[in-house]
């Protein structure tokens, strides 16, 4: 541990601690623009200038000690940046001295003179560090009487990112991110001095699957998400901590929603999972929740084709159909996109029906070695742990498909998947006496269903999932399901109840409790104990 004097008080920090972090940990947050804890420090914004000193050395090359027995500090007359500097033994820092204050004020003014100050129409407004630090360190008025530097205002530097070069304060965070995280060095500066501008290399675009992280780390409104741009003022967004369900990594997220509409997803720091990043694919994969094709009401097949039904009637119909079929003639196709709670109840449904033929549909695509997992199911591990999936996910699908085609299977439950993807064609589906399905959007299975039950999307429900590394993480509800759509676990519970009678499950916590009792991997845990950052399970 090294001793550092911060604003007059001696503190201890481990070797290798950045000065700016040591100050923040001591309660003295130093404003910064270019510094980002997950990237290299170029020291270019000069916002974090502080007064620094090192121990005064005596003639014997040992630090001179003051009356308090501590080293006397020899203050360096020039201000120093705190972001690119590790602490050293006996170092002294003044974060709020007149010199430090004057430096901040000066830099703040410099950053603002050529900034367009178009906050009323800027997407960053409300979460802009330029705004934030101007409040704290800026001048009330401007001394700048000149014309501002003109730069391009609306550049599509990539398919998902729009650049307003006038707002840019040239901190280089985006450039460093692209170099250091996705290793796709497409961004750089062109031109010189105050005319410097962020640009992509000629004939290159910022089209990495991680490009939207540059928008997150941009401290100002220079880089904006083309998808989110001008859609909603950020201060109206309700922030819900959740996880991304687009692949097995389970990046921690914040869902930004207002009045039952999701406007954006942004990554949330979890150093055991995704650091502070997430991929564009996962981030933007939420628009389907608000699709115009979203199925919002239960439906049953009647003599005149599919017709809307009330929930109690639809559940009763499904229960009656499934009870009628002998256990050996029922199969369940579940999904690796379901939560543990839903999977647990699926397993329970299987057991009350005596069904042994059940599996999930595997979805594997190209992954990368950054965050995107080849397993596009977010909860394959949960499905395995709870015994819904075959040992090798999808291993039983061929048998189920063959059973449906041959007519041996007479009732099929399809949860959140399309049986067409498992090789069951439309004609075979027509042979089924009962086809009960839960889903969000129409597909071949929902079209052919005898009972269709509208479920909830990832942002519309609570629950837990286990990622590819065995980390148990929690989804939280950001918005309500649309129309009459319901939380899937409730649908499954009602179905089980209708088949086998009451089971004492009223809340999702009850489901988790039962699950924790039944599955050793979850023993001792509860939904609340998972916390915001998840829990690593001991599984292989």
């Amino acid at each position, binding site marked *: 541990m090294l001793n550092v004097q911060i604003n007059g008080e001696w503190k201890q920090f481990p070797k290798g601690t950045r000065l700016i972090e040591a100050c923040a940990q001591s309660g003295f947050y130093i404003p910064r623009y270019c510094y980002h804890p997950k990237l290299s420090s170029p020291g*270019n914004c000069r916002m974090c200038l502080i007064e620094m000193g090192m121990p005064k050395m005596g003639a014997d090359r040992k630090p001179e000690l003051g009356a308090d027995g501590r080293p006397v500090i020899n203050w360096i007359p020039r*201000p120093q940046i705190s972001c690119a500097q590790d602490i050293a033994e006996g170092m002294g820092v003044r974060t709020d001295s007149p010199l430090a204050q004057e430096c901040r004020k000066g830099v703040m003014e410099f950053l603002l003179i050529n900034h367009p100050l178009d906050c009323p129409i800027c997407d960053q407004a409300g979460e802009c560090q330029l705004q934030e630090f101007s409040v704290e360190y800026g001048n009330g008025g401007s001394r700048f*009487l000149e014309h501002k530097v003109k730069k391009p205002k609306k550049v599509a530097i990539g398919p998902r990112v729009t650049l307003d070069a006038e707002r840019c304060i040239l901190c280089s965070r985006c450039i460093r991110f692209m170099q250091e995280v996705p290793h796709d060095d497409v961004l750089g500066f062109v031109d010189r001095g105050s*005319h410097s501008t962020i640009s992509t290399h000629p004939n290159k675009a910022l089209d990495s699957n991680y490009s939207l992280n540059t928008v997150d780390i941009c401290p100002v409104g220079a880089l904006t998400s083309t998808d989110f741009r001008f859609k909603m003022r950020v201060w109206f967004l309700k922030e819900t901590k959740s996880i991304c369900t687009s692949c097995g990594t389970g990046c921690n997220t914040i869902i930004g929603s207002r009045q039952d509409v999701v406007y954006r997803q942004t990554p949330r720091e979890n150093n055991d999972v995704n650091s502070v990043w997430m991929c564009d694919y996962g981030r933007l994969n939420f628009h389907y929740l608000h699709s115009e094709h979203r199925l919002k009401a239960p439906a049953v097949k009647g003599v005149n084709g599919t017709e809307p039904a009330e929930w109690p009637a639809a559940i009763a119909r499904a229960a009656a159909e499934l009870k009628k079929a002998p256990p050996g003639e029922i199969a369940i196709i579940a999904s690796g996109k379901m939560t543990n709670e839903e999977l647990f109840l699926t397993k329970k449904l299987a057991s009350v029906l005596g069904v042994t033929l059940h599996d999930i549909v595997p979805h594997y695509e190209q992954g990368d070695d950054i965050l995107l997992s080849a397993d596009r199911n977010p909860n394959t591990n949960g499905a395995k742990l709870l015994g819904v999936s075959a040992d090798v996910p999808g291993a039983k699908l061929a048998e189920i498909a063959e059973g449906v085609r041959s007519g041996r299977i007479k009732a099929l439950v399809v949860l959140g998947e399309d049986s067409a993807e498992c090789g069951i064609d439309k004609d075979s589906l027509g042979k089924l006496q009962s086809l009960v399905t839960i889903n969000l959007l129409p597909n071949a299975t929902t079209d052919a269903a005898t009972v269709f039950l509208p479920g909830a999307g990832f942002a519309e429900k609570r629950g837990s999932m286990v990622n590819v590394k065995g980390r148990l993480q929690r989804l939280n509800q950001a918005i309500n399901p649309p129309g009459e759509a319901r939380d899937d676990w409730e649908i499954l519970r009602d179905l089980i109840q209708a088949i086998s009678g009451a089971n004492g499950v009223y809340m999702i916590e009850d489901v988790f409790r039962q699950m924790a009792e039944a599955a050793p991997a979850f023993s001792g845990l509860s939904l609340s104990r998972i916390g915001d950052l998840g829990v690593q399970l001991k599984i292989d």
Partner: protein
Amino acid sequence: MPTPFKKTPHPKEKRIVFQNIDREGWSVDIECSLRNGGYEELKKAVTMKRVDIVNEVKASGLRGRGGAGFPCGVKWGFIKPDEPKPVYLICNADESEPGTFKDRYILHQDPHQLLEGMVISAFALGVHIAYIYIRGEFPVAAKILETAIEECRAKNFIGGNILGTGFDLEIYVHRGAGAYICGEETGLIESLEGKRAYPRIKPPYFPAVLGLYQCPTIVNNVETLCNIKHIVRMGGAEYAKLGRPNNTGTRVLCVSGDVLEPGYFELEVGAVTMGELIYDLCGGMKPGRNLKAVIPGGSSAKVLRAGEKYKIKAKQPDGSMADKEIGIEEIVMDFDSLAAVGSMAGSGGVIVMDDSRDMLWTLNNINEFYAHESCGQCTPCREGSLWMKKITERMLLGGGVERDPAVLKNVADNIAGRTICAFGEACAWPTQSFVAKFKEEFAARATKPLPPPLPPEYTPEELEGEVHAGLTGMNQ
């Protein structure tokens, strides 16, 4: 009409580095160099112990001739004799400080002196790859150097097993693309690595520790490296007798501006005063004109005003030090004396201005340069340099408001000392010094009351036209 460049040295000059510049019968080829004692010092150096050469340089007291005046021997001393990483030597030939034109003479006329100095330095420092980073605007000099390197290779002064000593050295010429910031040593290194010339943050990147490709690197100015040859010839102690204590050797001063005979002068450091330089060596001011101001060390050095009294510490006959007031003419042209009067010897570019010069116009001209050349990496210099230029330009066009001088000073104060590299000081010092020393001139051009009419009275288009109209720069 006065001849701008004299071929005969002035009697007060001591030509060492410039002994062959503009010399009758001198040519750039190696044969001419060899006939005149070229590469003799290299032959001597390779018989010496490396540490002895470094010690000679230390003993010589040679200070870097690029502008900062850092002791060369101390810089060399940072290189560990047993350094496991490759050590690089870079010759900084990116001479672009306005008012400075010494290195270009060496590069164009005496490349072999530089190469010999470089080979000796490389030998002393254990360098096997050296670079000459030459300013993009010196295309002819780059070709001359390339030819000279080939000539050296043919004579085995460069290449493998130099002069049979087993020492290998390659020297590459790298042309810049026309940016002042590439003269900053870490900016130069970044540029040489193929990146934008953004100066590095120091610490941790002191080039002698982490330089080119993160290896120990010595960056020396052209004139500095030429001096190495003469230090080997004379011996460090003998060289140190030239000039003054702590200001040893000779220096090439480049005088430009309103003197009758501008040009270069190689002088023992501190051999002349400002007055002698202007009135004896440069033939004095133009007829009927008086000295108004001098920028003594390249455009970034703080301006000195004629008629002002400068307080310095002077040695008394009994050896004690006492305060003394001197005029501008009495300032001795060496590193320490110029620093003592609040300016610097810098790159040796002395810009002399007479009473026909408009100081606001002059400052605007300098500000324009720095606003154009600021690399844009760090905030204060990037934004401040252009802001200062815009203020002086507006004042020049008659739009000066009362607070402008104060704002100019404050903007400059907010730049100096707060940037990654010394460019911050370079662009702030002119404004700080001009505004402070010519208060009345600036006040007279900043008379509009606050608040000023907004939007500004001119449009950018009008501004462009008027700047051209105001470009004469004379008060008349």
